[in-house]
Every structure is written in C-alpha cells, then in structure tokens.
C-alpha cells in the first residue's frame, strides 16, 4: 500500500539584485540542498516550486514534511542566485496551500493595519 506523503508549503520572499525567474530560484535552493545534505538528502526533500512571481519576489515552495528542517536550512544558506547576491526569507509554513494563503494574507493585513 502506498503511504500518504505529508507535505509542507513554504511562502518565500526572494530578495536580491534584480528579478529572478522561477528556474533560478529553484536551482538556488536545489544547489544548497545538494551542497549541505547531498543526493540522499535531496531525494528525500521532494522539492517543487508551486508558484513564483518575478515582479514581487514572492514564491511558494513545496517539500516533504520530514525534510522541512533540512529545506529551511538550505533556504537560509542561499546567498547567491545566478552568481548575483540574494537572500531568501521564509515567510510562513503551512500544511496546505489554502491555509498558507490565509496565514500570509492575515499577516500582511495585520502589518498594513499597524
């Protein structure tokens, strides 16, 4: 029987010199996962870039629930995307896209309200 895979969705904010396309962001995260945790770690991560907005720098990344600490460490260690200085910040983490959307929008509303 196939076991149900629990996933986590991460809302990300990409900052740096210039807009970065979807492939560049995913490549940067993959490079760091492979660099820090190797091919075995990479195979457990189940990385998939669900959404990426070049203009605003927001992105949504999916990973496996078990690999979440590993993926967060890899994201934090990104310092360059396509050889240009950059940083990726994790805004929120959630178990479903719907909940992630709610969390991000409520946080944004709270911030604009303040």
């Amino acid at each position, binding site marked *: 029987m196939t076991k149900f895979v629990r996933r986590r969705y991460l809302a990300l904010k990409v900052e740096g010199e210039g807009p970065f396309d979807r492939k560049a962001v995913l490549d940067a995260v993959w490079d760091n996962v492979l660099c820090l945790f190797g091919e075995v770690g990479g195979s457990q991560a189940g990385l998939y870039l669900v959404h990426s907005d070049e203009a605003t720098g927001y992105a949504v990344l999916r990973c496996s629930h078990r690999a979440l600490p590993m993926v967060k*460490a890899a994201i934090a260690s990104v310092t360059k995307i396509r050889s240009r*200085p950059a940083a990726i910040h994790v805004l929120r983490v959630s178990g479903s896209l719907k909940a992630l959307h709610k969390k991000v929008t409520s946080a944004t509303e709270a911030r604009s309200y303040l």
Partner: protein
Amino acid sequence: MKFSDLHLRVPLNDMDQARRMIAKSSELGYSQIGVPLPFGIKQDTIDQLRQFSEEFDVDLVTRLDLTPKNPSELLGCLRRFRRRFEVVSVLCGSKPLARQAAKDRRVDLLSFRAIESGKRFFDWAEAELASKSSAAFEIDLSQVLSIEGFLRVGFLSCLRREAARAKSFGVPVVLSSGATDVLLLRKPQDYASLALLFDMDASLAFEALSKNPFGIVERNREKQGSGYVVPGVRIVKEKTGDSR
C-alpha cells in the same frame, strides 16, 4: 518571543546603508541590535544610530570588539573601555588571550573568527573557565553563509564540537548575524534552522538568539546604572540627614 542580534556590523562611514540595515533587522523581527563601535567613536555617530533605531523601534546596544595581541593588552583595554560600552567582545587570536578572556568577568562574549579548527581555542579548558565567569560563546553565522565546500565542512564540524562543549559546561551560546550587508541578514527562525547544521537543537538556538543576549545586555545595563554596588547588591534608597 523577542530576538536580539548582538553583532550587526553596520558601516559607520555610510549612514544610508546603516539605516537600511537597522530597518531590515527590525523588519526581520529583531527588537535589539548590537552594533560594534570603535574606541574613539564620535557621540554624533552614536546619536544618529540611536535615532535610526528609535525610528524602527529597535533597542540599540553599543558593543566593543577587542582584538588585543596579548593578555596584558587585553587587561589594559578592559580597564580603559569596559564602562563605555554595553557589551564587550574579545576576538581570541591566541590561546593565552582566549584563556585570559574566559577568566575575566568583564568580558561578555568570546569570539573566534578563524575558520580552521587549529586556530579556534574553545577547547575543554576554555569552556570550563568560561563556565565559571560570565562570558558567553559567540557564533557568528555570517561565517557559515560566506564559505562553502571543504572549508564549510571543516567549519561546521568544528562548530558542532564547540556547541556540544558549551552545552556540557553550561556556557551560554549567543548566535549573531555578523552581517555587513542587508542580504546577509536572516530571520531568527532561519538562524535557528542554520544552527541545526551543527546539531544545535531549536530550543537552544532560540535561547541563543533571545534569552542569552538579552540577559547579557540587562546585566550590563544594571551594572552601568547608578545604584549598582556589586553583583546582588544595589542602592535602593540613599540615607538622608534626618532619617534614622
């Protein structure tokens, strides 16, 4: 939870960049930042930094990074400058210096800039000395971010040993950014994730980003306050002439 970054290396010759870095720290969730300042810093510069920190609602902590050549120079520097700064860190470049810094109660942070394990002196003896004084072990996370490949392999292995040593001797650890640029700054939660790379669990990492640095600053501010006498003793009320 409130977070502190005791090592934000803002460029003092570029106030726009300094302002941007302070703003970013505030945005990332820090409520306290420590800025390393040189001995002869002008009061105007400090005032300007304070103005920025008030603007972005963060508490500015003045920090001094000492890089003496030998233990006697360290003692001289501590005697001259300790009272002027809220946090004093010593960059331990040699073993005798590291030992003296670990023994001295006036030192708040023990920093080791070298990446090679042979040039870092946070061994068992150092940890034992630090556990008896009030010094904390500082880990600068910009070093983890700025290197890669075999250098990072060695460095992470070194940090893993040192973090375990600090834990076993009860030496407080302080995680700081050491950032010189906005793009090197990370959220406290991201730093806790990075600490996982050297087997520091999340609760200890959050302590190192929150409880430990706040404790150091609070203790030093109390010492610099007017009523302080010795640890545990402070003047609550002055005796007036006619009271008995």
